[in-house]
């Protein structure tokens, strides 16, 4: 029984990363109509920025949680201004190829300087240790990751679905020309949205650093599963990405317990089934 709960916890933690990353992808796809293949590399950059902040600047984990998303988010905004903005109105394929190229370059640069092995990043003192819940042992840091990710996901959902800024974003997703004709600077909003999506990826990277170590290919390993999560949830759907992210993490964890051989493929099998039954994803709307 303890093994089942342990796998459930692992599933929830993976689900947290899936949710944060797929949420960023959904926000970017909704606004920019770009399938951001650079997302994994930007997640990795978040972890590396936290590593540099700690080892070069002596800046601890808590500040890294704030600074790394901002730094990587600014890098993302520069990418959007200098490259991605020129793809407006073009086929998805161009965005996919460009962001895939960016991902390869970023990963290549980090691999060149840091190799493929992981760099250690210590769990902050405040989050060390664990709690015995009776039915399982819960490491505090892992519990923190799940709760914090959930809070960030819900805050992002609230921002997009319940605020005036979110209304601008949703309206601009539907008809950017008209929203601009109302006096809203849509190009600036697109840049900031890309920065937000990238910042979420970087935040996931910082959260992941103490668990998975800091590796140049840490994003590449994860991003394919995250894309499957986005496809299952429905491209561009905010709540769909959050729920599907956590749910698929849990399903993956349960599969590891009941049928370990299928744990690496279960997400993709589900993706195929969802695409067959509902091609727009579980919560996606038809174009």
């Amino acid at each position, binding site marked *: 029984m303890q093994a089942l709960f342990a796998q459930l916890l692992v599933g929830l933690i993976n689900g947290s990363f899936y949710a944060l990353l797929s949420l960023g992808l959904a926000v970017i796809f909704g606004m920019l109509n770009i399938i951001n293949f650079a997302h994994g590399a930007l997640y990795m950059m978040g972890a590396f920025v936290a590593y540099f902040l700690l080892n070069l600047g002596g800046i601890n984990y808590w500040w890294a949680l704030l600074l790394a998303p901002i730094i990587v988010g600014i890098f993302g905004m520069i990418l959007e201004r200098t490259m991605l903005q020129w793809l407006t109105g073009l086929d998805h394929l161009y965005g996919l190829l460009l962001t895939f190229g960016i991902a390869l370059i970023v990963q290549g640069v980090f691999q060149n300087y840091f190799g493929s092995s992981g760099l250690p990043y210590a769990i902050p003192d405040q989050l060390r240790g664990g709690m015995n819940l009776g039915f399982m042992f819960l490491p505090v840091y892992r519990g923190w990751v799940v709760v914090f990710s959930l809070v960030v996901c819900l805050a992002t959902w609230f921002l997009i679905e319940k605020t005036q800024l979110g209304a*601008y974003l949703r*309206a601009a*997703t539907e008809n950017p*020309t008209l929203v*601009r*004709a*109302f006096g809203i600077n849509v190009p600036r909003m697109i840049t900031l949205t890309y920065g937000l999506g990238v910042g979420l990826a970087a935040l996931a990277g910082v959260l992941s650093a103490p668990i998975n170590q800091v590796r140049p290919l840490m994003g590449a390993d994860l991003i394919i599963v995250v894309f499957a999560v986005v496809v299952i949830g429905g491209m561009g759907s905010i709540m769909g990405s959050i729920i599907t992210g956590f749910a698929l993490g849990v399903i993956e964890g349960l599969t590891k317990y009941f049928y370990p051989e299928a744990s690496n493929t279960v997400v993709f099998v589900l993706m195929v089934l969802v695409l067959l039954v509902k091609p727009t994803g579980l919560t996606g709307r038809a174009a």
Partner: protein
Amino acid sequence: MPDTAIAEAPARAASGGNILQVRNLEAWYGESHILHGINFDVNAGEVVTLLGRNGAGKTTTLKSIMGIIGKRSGSVKFNNQDIIRASSDKIARMGIAFCPEERGIFSSLDVRENLMLPPVVRESGLPLDQIFELFPNLKERLGSQGTKLSGGEQQMLAIARILRTGASFLMLDEPTEGLAPVIIQQIGHTIARLKKEGFTILLVEQNFRFASTVADRYYVVEHGKIIDGFSNAELAANMDKLHTYLGV
């Protein structure tokens, strides 16, 4: 340029100062040349209607003024400032509001969000209670999804949301299209009331009978040019010509 002369004659007759001056406006959709040198003026406080058949260039004229056509040339002066190179968000912030033909109601937003979407650009915008007085239906449907409203309600919402912004110059593109006569009448009353409150309105209409109840002046657009223009007082004398232009 004969159409400029046509434009200027009724403009001088109007009471308000010149608020919009369009000169030799040309516009393209990709390779298609749509406007071939449009010239006209709108004075403050007037309701001016662009009449013409489908595809004549009326909507493109409004979009070109608003800056949402990729390629355009000529001169568009709003309050003596040339806006031909300005982006559409800047033009909106200068006090021009646009209500598109397809209404542009956002399906992912409810009625309240649709209504509150355009930012306030001047303090002179209508307060919500006055907007609800004009369009009482909207108050009852605030929580509904924007696109779940009837065609008439959607049109009211599309007009209402630009009244909030404080823009003094409104461009309404076929506000009566596809609406029941009783709703058309209500839109007509609204436009008349807005005029009384000092708004300047540039209207695009195919429904000439509706336009004649609200407009001070008319311009006829054909093949991307203004081919005629007259005031409301001259309407009766121009009816035959107008029927020929509009093919009614």
